């Protein structure tokens, strides 16, 4: 798992499988980085991800709740068809933009 901080923007490179088991670490590490670096924007990078359940939705909603009070935003990049389906179904796309191409 990798994290990248650029100014007030945090990119979370999600692992292959996002479930309850590995969501804990993502939650702790990203909260730590958000607090330390005055993060306003969180980008979830799904390039490697081929499995996610509702635990992943919980993490996205939790980070959104944290930074939306500061006027921040969350977004998703490199989403596969499967990930788009999961994100759309859960309704999390109402608070999070999916960007098709990063560059």
């Amino acid at each position, binding site marked *: 798992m990798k994290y990248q901080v650029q100014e007030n923007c945090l990119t979370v490179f999600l692992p292959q*499988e996002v*479930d*309850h*088991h590995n*969501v*804990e670490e993502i*939650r702790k590490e990203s909260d730590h980085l958000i607090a330390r670096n005055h993060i306003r924007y969180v980008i979830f990078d799904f390039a490697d991800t081929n*499995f*996610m*359940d*509702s*635990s992943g*939705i*919980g*993490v996205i*909603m*939790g980070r959104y709740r944290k930074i939306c009070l500061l006027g921040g935003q969350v977004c998703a990049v490199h989403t596969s068809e*499967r990930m788009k*389906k*999961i994100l*759309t*179904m*859960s*309704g999390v*796309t*109402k608070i999070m933009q999916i960007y098709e191409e990063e560059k």
Partner: protein
Amino acid sequence: MEHTNEMELIFDSRSSNESFARVTVAAFMTSLNPTVEEVSDVKTAVSEAVTNAIIHGYEGEVHSIFIHGRTQGSTLFLTIRDEGVGMENVQQAMEPLYTTKPELDRSGMGFSFMEAFMDKLEVESEPGKGTTVKMEKTIGKGRRLWTTQSL
């Protein structure tokens, strides 16, 4: 007679076993010749049910989770059972966004996901006795458009 197959899986309620459980069920259902999409649907549903058993059923303690799988014709039947704390109000627990553990960033969408990805979902629970989740899915029915609609 229709072709049937059966399996049973018993494992510790450790979060590291979540991927083991869903991969095992995915392997079990391969005889039904499912699409990648159908395998992903079942994996997600199994993951939700097992996560529920670990976090809510056993509240982090390590006990056994039981999965019973059966295929009959082109239908997969799954029973995922724990002997944990159970639930008073199953109806309420199944409501979208309802969660008893918001502090853990749980989205409250576990049952909604199971319902959306499987054809049938039945939940039985008794406080102090445990919870049983029964699901079934018929393989090869083709893609249904509603599944991509927002809950």
